[in-house]
């Protein structure tokens, strides 16, 4: 287990560093940060001054190494638009996005797992077909459009929920639904496939034959084994949700990292954009790592393989 853990951790760190390098180079290739800071129409001399002042005249490798070293020390630089350090901005915004992500993931699991179990109990039944239809439709629904429809329905036609902001729990309901529904099809399908496999196993037949309550067999004996792949999928989905928060938070004006990303992108605030890409990548890598470890812990066979 320790060996497994160390291997995965090393790989995760390597991936995180590589991703930060790629995004650093990509953002630098796409735009000149000195011009972005000086603003359009600035004099050439001012741009040169800024270039020297911020150190943009040094070789890219040196700039990257410098940036990474300070990032590791917790210094993510200073926003060129907001009057704050990037670390302060993130500390303020990250809890909102994480809350939203957790709500959305819970919502998704609470709906999708029971649906997947029920679909697997009677394959090809009406319920199974209904669940699959919902999954197919869900995957095709553009999330930003779904968000606008919910606003029209629940804030305009039947004004029961606030359309934007993040003051109360009610503000989180619509974003949770919009962010959560997108993961449902994947979670449901995986639960269904897992249950179908497990329900054919000998130990399920044994449990049934010795007269155990069918619900106990289903949820205690079968689901426990079928749910293992769903655990790591959920970790990955949580990562996607953090990325998807860019669109959803900007629609619902939720002051999380997603909206911060959107604001800093439209203001060419490179240090903030760079830091957010790094933080999201690290979170994603961390989440997949946790998913892998949970899997190995839940299913000893993976550790050996």
């Amino acid at each position: 287990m320790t060996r497994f853990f160390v291997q995965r951790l090393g790989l995760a760190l390597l991936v995180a560093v590589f991703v930060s390098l790629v995004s650093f180079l990509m953002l630098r290739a796409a735009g000149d940060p000195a011009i972005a800071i000086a603003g359009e129409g600035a004099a050439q001399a001012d741009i040169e001054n800024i270039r020297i002042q911020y150190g943009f005249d040094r070789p890219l490798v040196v700039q990257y190494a410098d940036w990474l070293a300070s990032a590791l020390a917790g210094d993510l630089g200073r926003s060129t638009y907001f009057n704050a350090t990037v670390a302060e901005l993130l500390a303020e915004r990250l809890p909102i996005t994480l809350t939203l992500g957790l709500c959305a993931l819970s919502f998704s699991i609470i709906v999708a797992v029971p649906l997947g179990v029920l679909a697997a109990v009677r394959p090809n039944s009406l319920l199974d077909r209904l669940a699959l239809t919902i999954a197919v439709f869900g995957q095709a629904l553009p999330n930003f459009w779904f968000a606008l429809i919910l606003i029209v329905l629940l804030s305009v036609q039947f004004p029961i929920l606030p359309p934007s902001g993040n003051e109360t729990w009610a503000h989180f309901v619509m974003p949770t639904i919009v962010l959560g529904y997108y993961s449902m099809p994947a979670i449901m399908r995986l639960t269904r496939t897992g249950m179908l496999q497990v329900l054919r196993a000998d130990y399920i037949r044994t449990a049934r034959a010795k007269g155990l309550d069918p619900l106990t067999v289903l949820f205690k004996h079968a689901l426990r084994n079928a749910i293992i792949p769903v655990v790591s999928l959920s970790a990955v989905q949580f990562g996607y949700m953090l990325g998807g928060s860019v669109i959803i938070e900007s629609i619902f004006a939720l002051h999380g990292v997603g909206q911060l990303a959107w604001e800093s992108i439209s203001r060419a605030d490179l240090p903030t954009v760079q830091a957010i890409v790094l933080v999201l990548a690290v979170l994603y890598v961390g989440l997949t790592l946790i998913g892998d470890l949970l899997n190995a812990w839940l299913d000893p066979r993976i550790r050996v393989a």
Partner: protein
Amino acid sequence: MIQHVIDEPIQMSPRRLLWRRVRGHAGLLIGSAILTVILAVAALAPFIAPHDPYHQDLLNRLAPPIWQTGGTWTHILGADQLGRDYLSRLIYGAQLSLFIGAAATLISGLIGTGLGVIAGYFGGRIDMVIMFLITARLSMPVVLVALAVAALLGSSLTIVILILGFLLWDRFAVVARSATMQLRSSDYVLAARCAGCPTWRLLVSEILPNIGDALIVVATLEMAHAILLEAALSFLGMGVQPPLPSWGLMISEGRDFLFFEPWLIMIPGAALFALVLGINLLGDGVRDVTAPDGGA
């Protein structure tokens, strides 16, 4: 499913067997039908669009669609905030969505399949490096990176296609890799190698045709993905630029009138939904029909 295959009469040719499965697959038929309609609309756009999609007519701005009071047959789906005919913009938008989806998928397909086949065939160190690239790509927040690059480069149709093409290759690589690994030591590949077939030709003419089915399924998924992402980017103002009739852009422009004229967002959104649904149903159907035991 396996049982089903065994039950088929033996004298049935593979082609007829396939056709029989196609006919029996409701999702595949519905998906193909939706896609055929949208493809036809896109191909025939100049002939069926009632108006020029760029022609502004300020007297008719926000003219309501036919089913609302005041709707006229001149503008069946109404007109937008600049008085442009909504139906015509919707029709030309189909062209745009399909073109962006196809072009982006072509780029990502070439990158992903190339990497995947190489990784799967050679294995070892090469495989390790490519697997690392795939893992790294998966860890990048797609929407965020796409938005940032589009914003910094200044977005346009070409830029959007390139960004999507260079971001969405991961699934191609994963599928091509595992499919190639299965074929690597099959008899006909070994025979070709023994016969002195050069490696590149072996990859192109022995391996590639035989992983095609799986790749087509990925291509449909990625095309749907690319179309949705383009719409989202355009919706946020970092994708296709006005006055192009992108469905995402139409939704974004209609958003200003969300409370009073919700049909402005409903119509292009429904079109987008139908297109993605059609592509997904087709992809799922092809997967079920070509790999009935649930592979790919």
